[in-house]
């Protein structure tokens, strides 16, 4: 640091400066500022302790840094953990200084204020110091035969990460995480550093294990059900980590809905929500916090329309966002009144007089007050502007849904009418204005300037080059044209070919992976297995007398009562008579990663079909497997994987192992073609299972409805042929069309990772 001239110390501060009694010019430079801040936070006694401990650190012989950082940070620590912590800090720094770990003093002091903000009590701070000390002892090594000890590689990294870690871990979790690193990397300084710097994979894994609160990954299905059930909406959830990402609030875009990976239960000190008075506490569970965030997002998705941002100033934009947030929440609460309680608990309560609108930029504060007042009619704000706009807002909402555009008008007029000189000040008032369950509203704006015009031009339709597909000559099938309410005859060409083969052992490996599941299934399958003869009792006519019943009847008869005439029994061959066709959608989209799983949809389908094949084979039902994809109506591929006459053997498994996905989904034609095989099976029941991840589509069919209607028509045709079609759909958006095609005969698998388990279970329950 370069000090040109000694900073002056005012007469008032002179006694303190003398008490500190250190010679570093760098300390002199910041002393006045630090002390003023400390005086605002500490008692007179606290100030003395602050200075005495600082002096000690200055004279410890470890340079100027420790005392500088201490002067800067210690008052905040004392504010959160009590004034006794001033002494605790010094003692701990001294402990480090005496050992070989003096290098960790600065990182320790630099982060301890943030740590104490999380811990909020002297006891917890003490525990934190204890566990740091334990870590120091566990990781400081002395080599046998030498007198020298080596500094802990972990300690400085640990201190640097501590605030971040405590954001998501309880102190106990932090201790477990640290213990793990100390135990496993004691002999390996580099790896130890990596672990404590949160760089190694296992370090992150242990962190995940130790974190508290409600994890998104554990609750995806529940939240999916929430979206579908209450909002008829749904998209993949993508977690972001509060610890490692910059992102602070949820958002959604074309890829999905982003939510924090964990929400803690929120303990509020008052029954009515944040910051308010009143006896008692209110706990909002993590899952309800997710639901609140999703309710807000779902409300936007239902009622918000994007608007052009270019001519709207940043202040106006902020107001539009606040107002639009309020509007959609009002509508959501109209639908589900119970939401108000949840929103009110989570919404901060801006304190009316906390912000000086002549000194600070108070726009945020005003808007947050409006937002609060719209949730909580009893909030009692007096601000004229706020009350006026709230009244106007309520009138608008009483009339109907209003619109995003009306909110833009309302926002612009509000900003114009409440403008203040200080609004432009850099000193923005933030306290209690951030509503953290609300998304960031990026969906609300269209920016014309940055627009990528190129996309506006239609890309020329790209028909992918077809490779030569050697096989049988094509079969032609009609396609249903719903607008003409008629078939287009011989419209689609279906080429059938043998699916290429891979390595059968891959499938055996997949089956092994699911050995536990297979075992469970086997039990159910054994029950389903046809027993050759089943006795049917209580028959008037039958092949044998049922003695029990006959005697009972005779007694009734002799005693003058009405005898039961059903005294015979007969036998029935309980052959299951079901033929199954499994039709797999092998279109391009299967190559995508399944939400919430490291595997692709294709890989999961492959596992699922392997298990299903294994299960059906066990039952002995005749079954076939085929895949399909399409590249215009002239080229629908039907890939034969297993035929009815083939055994579930290595050649079939080898074809499954080579399963591959490309092109589109012309479902109707494939179903018709598959039906023509299934129809020939001499069984009583015929079941076609269609496994797909999306709606029927093809590149030469612009009208999305067309192929849906055709598939529906195919289902009808199959029904007439005595074939029961059933769709297993992996598309979270399938609600929009799957019932149109399959009526009631479908299941949507929300959590695709469960497919391998679900598919055989479903088959079993369908044929039970």
């Amino acid at each position, binding site marked *: 640091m370069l000090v040109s001239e000694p900073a002056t110390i005012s007469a008032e501060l002179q006694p303190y400066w003398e008490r500190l009694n250190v010679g570093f010019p760098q300390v002199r430079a910041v002393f006045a500022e630090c002390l003023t801040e400390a005086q605002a936070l500490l008692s007179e006694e606290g100030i003395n302790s602050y200075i005495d401990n600082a002096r000690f650190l200055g004279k410890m012989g470890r340079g100027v840094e420790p005392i500088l950082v201490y002067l800067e940070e210690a008052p905040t620590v004392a504010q959160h953990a009590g004034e006794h912590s001033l002494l605790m800090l010094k003692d701990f720094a001294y402990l480090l200084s005496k050992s070989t770990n003096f290098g960790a003093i600065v990182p320790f002091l630099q982060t301890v204020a943030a740590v104490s903000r999380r811990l909020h009590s002297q006891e917890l701070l003490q525990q934190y110091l204890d566990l740091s000390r334990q870590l120091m002892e566990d990781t400081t090594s002395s080599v046998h035969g030498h007198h020298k000890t080596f500094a802990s590689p972990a300690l400085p990294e640990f201190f640097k990460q501590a605030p971040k870690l405590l954001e998501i871990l309880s102190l106990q979790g932090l201790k477990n995480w640290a213990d793990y690193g100390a135990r496993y990397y004691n002999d390996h300084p580099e790896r130890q550093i990596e672990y404590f710097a949160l760089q190694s994979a296992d370090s992150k894994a242990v962190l995940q294990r130790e974190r508290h609160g409600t994890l998104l990954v554990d609750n995806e299905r529940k939240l999916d059900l929430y979206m579908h*059930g209450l909002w008829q909406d749904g998209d993949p959830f993508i977690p972001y980590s509060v610890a490692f990402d910059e992102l602070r609030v949820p958002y959604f875009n074309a890829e999905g809905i982003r939510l924090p990976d964990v929400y803690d239960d929120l303990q509020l000190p008052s029954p009515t929500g944040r910051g308010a008075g009143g006896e008692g506490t209110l706990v909002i569970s993590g899952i309800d916090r997710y639901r609140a965030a999703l309710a807000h997002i779902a409300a936007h998705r239902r009622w918000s329309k994007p608007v052009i941002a270019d001519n709207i100033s940043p202040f106006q934009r902020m107001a539009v966002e606040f107002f639009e947030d309020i509007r959609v929440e009002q509508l959501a609460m109209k639908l589900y009144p119970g939401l108000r309680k949840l929103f009110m608990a989570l919404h901060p309560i801006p304190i009316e007089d906390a912000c000086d609108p002549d000194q600070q930029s108070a726009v945020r504060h005003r808007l947050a007050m409006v937002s609060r007042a719209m949730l909580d009619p009893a909030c009692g704000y007096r601000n004229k502007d706020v009350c006026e706009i709230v009244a106007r807002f309520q009138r608008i909402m009483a009339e109907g849904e209003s619109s995003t555009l009306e909110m833009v008008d309302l926002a612009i007029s509000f900003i114009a009418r409440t403008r203040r000189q200080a609004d432009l000040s850099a000193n923005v008032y933030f306290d209690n204005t951030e509503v953290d369950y609300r998304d960031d509203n990026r969906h609300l704006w269209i920016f014309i300037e940055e627009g990528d015009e190129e996309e506006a031009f239609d890309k020329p339709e790209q028909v992918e080059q077809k490779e030569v597909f050697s096989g049988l000559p094509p079969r032609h099938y009609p396609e249903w044209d719903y607008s003409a309410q008629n078939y287009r005859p011989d419209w689609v060409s279906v080429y059938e070919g043998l699916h290429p083969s891979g390595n059968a052992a891959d499938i055996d490996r997949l089956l092994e992976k699911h050995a536990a599941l297979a075992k469970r299934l086997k039990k159910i399958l054994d029950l389903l297995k046809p027993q050759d003869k089943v006795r049917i009792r209580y028959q008037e006519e039958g092949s044998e007398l049922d003695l029990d019943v006959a005697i009972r009847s005779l007694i009734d008869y002799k005693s003058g009562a009405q005898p039961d005439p059903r005294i015979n029994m007969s036998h029935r061959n309980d052959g299951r008579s079901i033929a199954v066709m499994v039709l797999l959608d092998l279109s391009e989209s299967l190559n995508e990663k399944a939400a919430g799983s490291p595997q692709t949809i294709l890989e999961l389908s492959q596992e699922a079909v392997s298990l299903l094949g294994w299960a059906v084979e066990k039952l002995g039902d005749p079954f076939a497997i085929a895949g399909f994809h399409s590249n215009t109506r002239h080229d629908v591929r039907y890939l034969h994987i297993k035929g009815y006459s083939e055994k579930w053997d290595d050649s079939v498994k080898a074809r499954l192992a080579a399963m591959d996905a490309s092109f589109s989904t012309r479902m109707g034609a494939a179903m018709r073609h598959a039906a023509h095989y299934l129809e020939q099976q001499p069984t009583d029941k015929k079941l076609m299972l269609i496994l797909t991840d999306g709606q029927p589509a093809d590149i030469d069919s612009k009208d999305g409805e067309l192929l849906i209607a055709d598939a529906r028509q195919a289902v009808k045709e199959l029904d007439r042929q005595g074939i029961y079609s059933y769709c297993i759909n992996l598309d979270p958006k399938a609600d929009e069309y799957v019932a149109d095609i399959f009526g009631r005969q479908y299941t949507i698998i929300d959590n695709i990772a469960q497919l391998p388990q679900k598919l055989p279970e479903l088959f079993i329950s369908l044929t039970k």
Partner: protein
Amino acid sequence: MTNLDQYKVHQQPFYQAQGDEVALYEAAYSARLPVMVKGPTGCGKSRFIEYMAWKLNKPLITVACNEDMTASDLVGRYLLDANGTRWLDGPLTTAARIGAICYLDEIVEARQDTTVVIHPLTDHRRTLPLDKKGELIAAHPDFQLVISYNPGYQSLMKDLKQSTKQRFTAFEFDYPAAEMEAGILGKEAGIELGLATQLVKIGQVARNLKGHGLDEGISTRLLVYAATLIKGGVAAKAACRMALVRPITDDADIRDTLDHAIDATFV
């Protein structure tokens, strides 16, 4: 002769028409065409038939079908008594003789060899052979056959044969639209419309979850139950949990979601 009057529906049942089904049914009846009513459980199928029987002033004989039912349970059988044997008509035979509407409820439950006995009654023959008795009954001109079934039972083992299906005209029922359903709850249980609307909303949440782990949503019947409980003094949330959620699912996630829907709907 059998007392016709005992099979009559004397009091007008409350039935809220969903569309033009009443007129269509009358048309089917006047041509004596057999009728099939499809639809999820508790959506008003039985109530509709009861209402039509009342409106047409015809006797109604209802048979709840089950797996153990044999053809004799429908047609009739010889009974032994002190004087030897005596023939007793089954409900289908009675209906054919007296000219009643015979309503076979949940026909898919019956075994397929049982179902075929209705075939001769459903085509131009309109006869019922009583093989054991050696009698061929020509159906009374007022006789009509009605069957109901729920296509939602997702098992292909429980489906009607094509040859059976293709003998009937059919009505496809579903749960009524929200407003209408609320009206039905109001009338049936005597609750006010605001409350009825809230109940219907919860019903719809469950219906949205069909296919996501629920085989059937919440039926109108269950909504009527909930309304009745509330009318009887049970707290709304408790009544909903008891009548709407617990009966339909054992899936913890779904239960939790529906419970939340109840909390979000009732304050």
